[in-house]
């Protein structure tokens, strides 16, 4: 049973650069430039890529933390990107977010009890005061925090515990979709494992759809169902986990995977070291955005932008190499790394 909970069509978000409020500058940051994907109920889609690729902007655009430049965001059949703010409010209950740093996303002047009660009151989910208390106790139990945590302040907790509070608060609204924006990136190894396991358990229990935004590919591989790889505001490859990690079809994915250090001394691996830095999203390269760093780039890549298109069942890549005869295509049989 698969039921689409979120559909994103050709999403664009350009930020004006310089200038004032009345006369915005003409230059723009093309943070997200035409991104489409969908997420099913109870599914995890990971958005991966390096800093500045636009993955967080996608997450925030879906939550409508700002207005988008173009495209559509459809939540469970309802288009929400052009909805008036008042009409959107009740729908916000269905999508929640967990940010990277709980110390800055949890109000330091609110006790845990109040932090958790706020979304419940906001969306009028509790029938009575007793119900509210029961819900808070249950939430704490679900994220494996002691009941006594209720009366304490965010600063009294460790980083991992604070992230549990942030997760409990996201769950309090009974959402269908949770955007996890680098939710485990700042945590220590042993605590990271605890939070990853918790998220997986909660997803199974509540049938949550997760948009898991992360740059940590090993964690992504561990917990996602599908992966979208972003580079300079575009999705360059999209596929099921095994397709991406086993036989990726885009040179950027290949380079990204090969750059991850593996905790196994002496492991023999194909290593691709990309030259230079990611180009600026203010002035992205013409043609394929990756051609300036791509080890396989040829003439066509410099002039024509490749579209994201199906390569095989469920796997999409935006790369001209797949138009070449198989023998000349280095991405044809990229094996596991």
């Amino acid at each position: 049973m698969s039921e689409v909970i979120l559909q994103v069509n050709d999403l664009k978000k350009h930020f004006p650069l310089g200038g004032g409020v009345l006369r915005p500058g003409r230059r723009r940051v093309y943070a997200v430039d035409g991104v489409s994907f969908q997420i099913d109920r109870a599914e995890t889609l990971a958005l991966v890529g390096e800093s500045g690729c636009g993955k967080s902007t996608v997450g925030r655009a879906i939550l409508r933390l700002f207005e988008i430049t173009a495209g559509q965001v459809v939540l469970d059949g309802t288009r929400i990107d052009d909805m008036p703010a008042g009409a959107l409010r009740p729908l916000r209950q269905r999508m929640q977010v967990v940010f990277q740093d709980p110390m800055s996303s949890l109000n330091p002047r609110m006790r845990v009890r109040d932090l958790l009660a706020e979304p419940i009151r906001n969306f009028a989910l509790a029938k009575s005061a007793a119900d509210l208390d029961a819900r808070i106790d249950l939430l704490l139990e679900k994220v494996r925090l002691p009941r006594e945590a209720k009366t304490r302040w965010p600063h009294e907790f460790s980083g991992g515990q604070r992230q549990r509070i942030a997760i409990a608060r996201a769950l309090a609204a009974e959402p269908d979709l949770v955007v996890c924006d680098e939710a485990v990136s700042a945590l220590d190894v042993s605590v990271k494992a605890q939070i990853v396991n918790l998220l997986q358990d909660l997803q199974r229990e509540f049938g949550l759809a997760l948009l898991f935004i992360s740059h940590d590919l090993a964690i992504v591989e561990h917990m996602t169902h599908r992966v979208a790889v972003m580079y300079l505001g575009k999705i360059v490859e999209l596929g099921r986990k095994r397709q991406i990690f086993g036989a990726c079809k885009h040179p950027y994915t290949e380079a990204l995977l090969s750059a991850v250090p593996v905790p196994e001394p002496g492991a023999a691996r194909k290593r691709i070291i990309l030259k230079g830095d990611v180009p600026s999203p203010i002035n992205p390269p013409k043609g394929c955005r990756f051609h300036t760093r791509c080890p396989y780039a040829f003439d066509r890549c410099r002039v024509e932008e490749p579209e994201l298109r199906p390569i095989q069942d469920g796997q999409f890549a935006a790369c001209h190499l797949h138009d070449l005869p198989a023998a000349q295509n280095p991405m044809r049989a990229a094996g596991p790394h």
Partner: protein
Amino acid sequence: MALLEVENLQTHFRTPEGVNRAVDGVSFSVEAGETMAIVGESGCGKSVTANSILRLVPQPPGSIAGAIRFEGRDLLKLSEAAMRKVRGDDISMIFQEPMTSLNPVLTIGRQIAEPLRLHQGLNRKQVEQRVVEMLGLVGIAEPRRRAREYPHQLSGGMRQRVMIAIALACRPKVLIADEPTTALDVTIQAQILSLMADLKQRFRAAIILITHDLGVVAEIAERVMVMYAGRKVEEAPVTKLFRSPRHPYTRGLISAVPKLGSSLATAQTKLAEIPGVVPSLKARIAGCVFASRCALATDVCRRVAPALEEKAPDHFAACHFAAKATVAA
């Protein structure tokens, strides 16, 4: 005699709530041309250990005890003036966040020139030449033009290259790298790691690499020391440590990290968790520091601190049950 020997290092901080034993009796040594990694989670004392070597810990509230012998001289006994001659010349350091450790109002050329002027007594022309040479060495294109630029004009990866150029300008004998790639993207991290490996070959410097990333350790270290709550719990050559970790904490750390390619091999398993959190360092812990989170802990662990013993040739661990731990692995 090793190039750098740290003996029973104790770096404590006086706080209103009590004495914080950030580093509590750590000993190790590094040879020329060797890369040793210090791994552990935040608060385990790895950065404080590094800062103690260069005496960068503010005293007070900090206090450093023990001995840090560099080429036989105890750095803790040197005057501040003599210590300044060591910093940046014999022993230098790369910090995690180049944006906060580079001076934003000086050109990068000037910042690379600073240690050269201070320590090597070169004239202007020679300094200029060395600056350009260093920038080229760390792989910055157009070094002459870049030398006149300011840190904000460079990308994160380039800033870290500049940090490395500064650290290596005086050809140090020991290079301490504190999370040198943590703030960088993986493709840039790969560039920096290969640069460090290359430069090590060239200069035969000893490298002390501080990191929490076991992947980076496996990639470039030869020997690994694992720290937990201010103490050293295990030390071994890198292959031994990853193949047969002896300390339950090390085993926990290794199995808590998912490996790339995990989805291809077997059915999905849960990540191994280490339950609980790191204990507060402000109260003296009588027994083993890891006892509160250890599955194997018994009464003896809570009472008696285990000594660091050689459990196998060249493989040290501080655990009463290290032998048992191996069987269980």
